[in-house]
């Protein structure tokens, strides 16, 4: 019980630090570059934030189950091309959005199956499928798909709430709210955390671990699809590489948000803050008058700082509980849970 309480405290502080940091950036920007708060810039930032966040929520689910998905960017590229094919016919947003989500679902689901059925670590499995997805696109499309009709760019060009807020923000808001409720109240989410915490223990309590992992990928897929749709509809031309490399930023947003890569922890609110901070960096530097050449370095430093702060606060707390230097708080549990196997094994032999 004390364990879970301290973990709750830890989560609170991670997000708390992030929030303070975020507010600090916003205040500094107010003082240093008031123009930063022009309606236009805010909306540009929010649009980027929206599609980064939507994909990051999907990634967050995957990371909670202690997997990772480096194929996210390539799936987004595939989605962009698929919806461009559909959108070229003049089909309206709902049609190609569904096509995009379907594409995301199928590809990500396949990734999930690949990982669980063959028992291959997620990072290498998705690394391999990335190469298939990225390599296949230029063979299907020679060059880019351009001259897309007005119906294709409707989402980015016309769809504005109250005439100013891009519709992508509404997508992100609805999805975020939905997932926050879902993660808080559904039994499914408890199982996700359980799988990430300790697969073996989860199996013992009757959870189908593989099914949960495939489901996490399958849920992330349509979210990548929505993200890909927002990215692709930004202009009248879609190229074959629109999402390539984006997975690094998505993972960074999740990690910055306090989700542990070893699984079993992480909240949507953290991801929201992480994605928001990342989407501020480049424009903020530009408005302050710094060259955007430094934005990658700043981004790396912020992620590093965030995980170090989170780690130090955990370490100082855990020192009282754990004597053996250890990688994470979950391990004592792991040892306790799997002890029967360890003792049973010699008998089998």
């Amino acid at each position, binding site marked *: 019980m004390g364990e879970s309480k301290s973990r709750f405290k830890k989560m609170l502080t991670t997000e708390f630090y992030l929030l303070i940091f975020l507010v600090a950036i916003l205040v500094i920007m107010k003082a240093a570059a008031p123009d930063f708060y022009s309606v*236009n810039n805010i909306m*540009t930032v929010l649009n980027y934030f929206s599609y980064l966040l939507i994909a990051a929520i999907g990634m967050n689910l995957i990371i909670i189950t202690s997997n990772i998905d480096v194929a996210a960017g390539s799936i987004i590229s595939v989605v962009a091309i698929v919806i461009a094919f559909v959108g070229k016919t003049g089909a309206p947003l709902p049609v190609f959005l569904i096509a995009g989500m379907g594409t995301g679902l199928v590809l990500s689901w396949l990734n999930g199956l690949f990982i669980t059925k063959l028992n291959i670590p997620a990072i290498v499995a998705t690394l391999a499928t990335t190469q298939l997805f990225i390599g296949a696109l230029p063979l299907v499309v020679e060059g880019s798909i351009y001259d897309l009709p007005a119906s294709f760019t409707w989402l980015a*060009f016309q769809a504005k709430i109250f005439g100013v807020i891009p519709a992508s923000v509404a997508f992100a808001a609805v999805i975020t709210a939905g997932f926050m409720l879902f993660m808080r109240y559904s039994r499914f989410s408890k199982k996700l955390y359980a799988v990430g915490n300790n697969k073996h223990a989860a199996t013992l309590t009757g959870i189908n671990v593989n099914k949960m992992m495939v489901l996490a990928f399958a849920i992330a897929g349509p979210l990548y699809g929505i993200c890909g749709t927002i990215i692709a509809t930004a202009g009248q031309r879609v190229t*074959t*590489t629109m999402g*390539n490399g984006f997975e690094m930023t998505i993972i960074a947003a999740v990690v910055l948000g306090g989700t542990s890569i070893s699984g079993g922890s992480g909240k949507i609110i953290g991801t929201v803050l992480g994605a928001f901070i990342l989407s501020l960096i480049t424009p903020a530097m530009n408005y302050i008058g710094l060259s955007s050449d430094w934005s990658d370095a700043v981004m790396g430093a912020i992620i590093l700082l965030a995980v170090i702060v989170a780690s130090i606060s955990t370490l100082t707390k855990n020192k009282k509980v754990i004597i053996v230097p250890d990688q994470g708080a979950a391990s004592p549990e792991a040892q306790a849970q799997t002890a029967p196997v360890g003792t049973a094994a010699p008998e089998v032999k």
Partner: protein
Amino acid sequence: MIVKKKIALVLVIALALVTALSFGACSSGGDSATTDEGTPPASDDQATEESTDTPAAEKVTIAMLPKFKGENYFDACKVGAEEAIEELKASGADVELLYDGPPQSDATNQNQVNILEGWIAQKVNAILVSPNDPDAIAPTLKKAQEAGIKVLTFDADAAPDARDLFINQASYEAIGTGMIKAVADKLTEKGYGPDKPANLGFVSSAKTDANQKAWLDAAKEVIATDEYSWLKIANEETDVYYPGPDETEAQKQSGTLISRMGDGADQIQAAIGLTSMATPALGAQYEQAAKKPDASKVTMTGLATPNALKDYIKNDSNPLDSGVLWSCMDLGYLAVETAYQYSIGTITADSTTMTTDRLGEREIANKEILLGDALIFDKANVDEFDY
């Protein structure tokens, strides 16, 4: 026993893998032939046949390497290159075109070098390259020259000592002046001038791109003259964006630039896209902007293919009114013609002119061939182009 079984299993799978691979190689060999168009049998088969059976055949293989594949600009160049090949074949020449390039998201020198090495080993007759990094590619180009391959650059130049000829689309000055003039005319219409100066913003490519660098320098020279001294780049650190060749990044940074536009002295009045990714991105991001900068106070232009800008130019509420380019098809055509004529010796490094069926006579000066003038298109004539 178990070990033996395992070895057997491994071997079976390995063999399956290898067979699968060779199949993949066969089918993709055919694939490259179809993308290269017009050579029905697999191109690599031809190459091997050629090298083993008929060593002295007059066949000329021209290998073309764009900065990256999958974007209108180089696609249009490729169309022109293929037309030149068709024309040459129709006139009885035995000529083949190889075309490959890095993907747009990974348009690095390393990828270009990998492709070049393959061509050098096959001893193609001529290499046409548009380098991503003029200096870093130079050692590889020199290696090609040492192997007796004619090395030509098109679209963007490499270090001059690493290539034989450069097929330049238009002089840097012409493009710089063209862009500044287009912007200045529009801004004058909108009430700017010597007593109401205007700020310029640029969206470039990567810092190492020779063209963008040269065009920006040319533009800077033009605004340093008295006539255009009311045009300014307020802060080169922040007002020139370098998103690289990546489409999504170009969109993102163009969006930031658009949000900084307006008629205030600390805002930007004119945005210029220096790449065929950036200019359409400016148009699209303007359409997307929540509170569009007043179109009667700002203007935009830049380099891009007409197809990519058509809708924005025709849309009166979008301040993207004109585009600057040259005929990409003609550039591809001229590049291949030059490579062919240079390979068979019709022209040499000392020639001062060359002629092609389609384009007539072109001058060769300082190891450079100039395609022609920059083409400025606007609402009136944008529909005349289709590339």
